[in-house]
């Protein structure tokens, strides 16, 4: 089975598991909503203020969501030791990681797309005219989040205190993504809107670097 086929098969399995229960998506959406509401208490979300702070808060909320949502990615496999079964399959071990990354990417992107209009309404930001560049930044940032998050979820699943450990490992590594996507987003929301090519390139570079690292070193995490 080629890497591509195996990845798609794993992705399909992940999607099927999640959409049977939808518990992960539902919980994460509510969590981000709570964070967005709580943020509104820390400063006055008037229009000019929210233009300055909004993008940062939004990305921070997504990062927190990711560090919680990616938790079960490998933990779920431990209950019935299904990871051992996956490893026995005659496929490239990286396809297990790649399939999970793709699934996590889709889950996170879905959560973000659902919450974007809510954010726009709550923080009084017009997003419709700038939707295309905004989705591009969301996608690039989320690739970085899903890539590192999936790998670290495999790391944390093998340690004690794993629920606490994943955010601890993930958030400092994701600091560059937070900066780049926040800067890119606030550029887009500025008047006149301007999409910074520097930050876009930076996000793409982050994604490529860590995808490559995951491809080179990720499979070691899957061995028994």
């Amino acid at each position, binding site marked *: 089975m080629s890497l591509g086929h195996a990845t798609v098969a794993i992705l399909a399995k992940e999607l099927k598991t999640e959409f049977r229960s939808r518990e992960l998506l539902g919980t994460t959406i509510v969590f981000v909503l709570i964070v967005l509401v709580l943020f509104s208490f820390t400063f006055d979300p008037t229009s000019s203020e929210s233009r300055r702070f909004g993008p940062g808060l939004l990305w921070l909320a997504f990062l927190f969501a990711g560090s919680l949502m990616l938790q079960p990615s490998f933990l779920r496999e431990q209950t019935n030791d299904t990871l051992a079964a996956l490893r026995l399959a005659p496929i490239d071990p990286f396809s297990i990681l790649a399939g999970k990354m793709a699934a996590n990417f889709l889950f996170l992107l879905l959560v973000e797309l659902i919450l974007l209009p809510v954010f726009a309404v709550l923080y009084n930001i017009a997003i419709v005219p700038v939707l295309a560049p905004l989705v591009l930044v969301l996608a690039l940032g989320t690739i970085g989040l899903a890539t590192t998050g999936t790998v670290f979820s495999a790391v944390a699943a093998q*340690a004690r205190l794993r629920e606490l450990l994943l955010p601890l*490992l993930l958030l*400092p*590594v994701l600091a*560059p993504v937070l900066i780049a996507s926040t800067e890119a987003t606030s550029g887009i929301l500025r008047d006149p809107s301007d999409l910074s090519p520097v930050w876009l390139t*930076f996000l793409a*570079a982050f994604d490529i670097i860590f995808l490559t690292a995951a491809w080179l070193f990720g499979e070691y*995490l899957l061995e028994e």
Partner: protein
Amino acid sequence: MGSDSQSRTPSGAVISLSSVVVVFLLLAAGSYGALIKAPTEATMGLIQRIFYFHVSSAWTGFIAFFLVFIGSIAYLRTRSLKWDWLSVASAEVGVAFFTVVLVTGPIWAKPVWGIWWTWDARLTSSFLLWVLFVSYLLLRTLVDEPERRAVVAAVFGIFATMDIPLVYFSIWWFRTQHPQPVMGKGGSLDPTMWWVLILCWCATLGVMTLLIRVRYRLEGLRAEVDALRLEASRNAR
């Protein structure tokens, strides 16, 4: 069995007396240079002398973190636990040096900038690096089985070191207030100051090497104790 456990012992003395003497002399010379020989900086005054050990500790810390990267990759390739010992030793020593950087920085900043801390590019990225490798060390404490711990820590160590340049660039573009590097282009650093800085760097590098060797041996001895304990419990049964 006896000879078997002998062969696991990291061989030789930890550090030779002569290497300790050399590092001690380097430190003494560096301190003399930093505190007495180097000219007093015109605007900042005496407090600027902290710069020699501040900057050299940062450079040394970077080298220690780079050793974590090398040790991690080599462990995954060779599966020899010795590389893992190198990684953990370097990570701990690197964190120690960055602690020095993060403590001496504010001591210097308070009289010169008037504030202990500012969220400038270099300060923020050094702080973040420190946090990254503290997480690395925490992760190690949370995995018990040595081979598992080595693999998991190696992957995280590789990711963390690959993150260093990205952290640096992103924060750099984001904001900067740190005194622009006095070294390199512009070259306003007095030649004596240069020499003192290099001397201090050699001294901190020497300290780093000694500490890593001691810590490496300690990790090896720990592994041996664990193996012996396992053997003993097996024999008792």
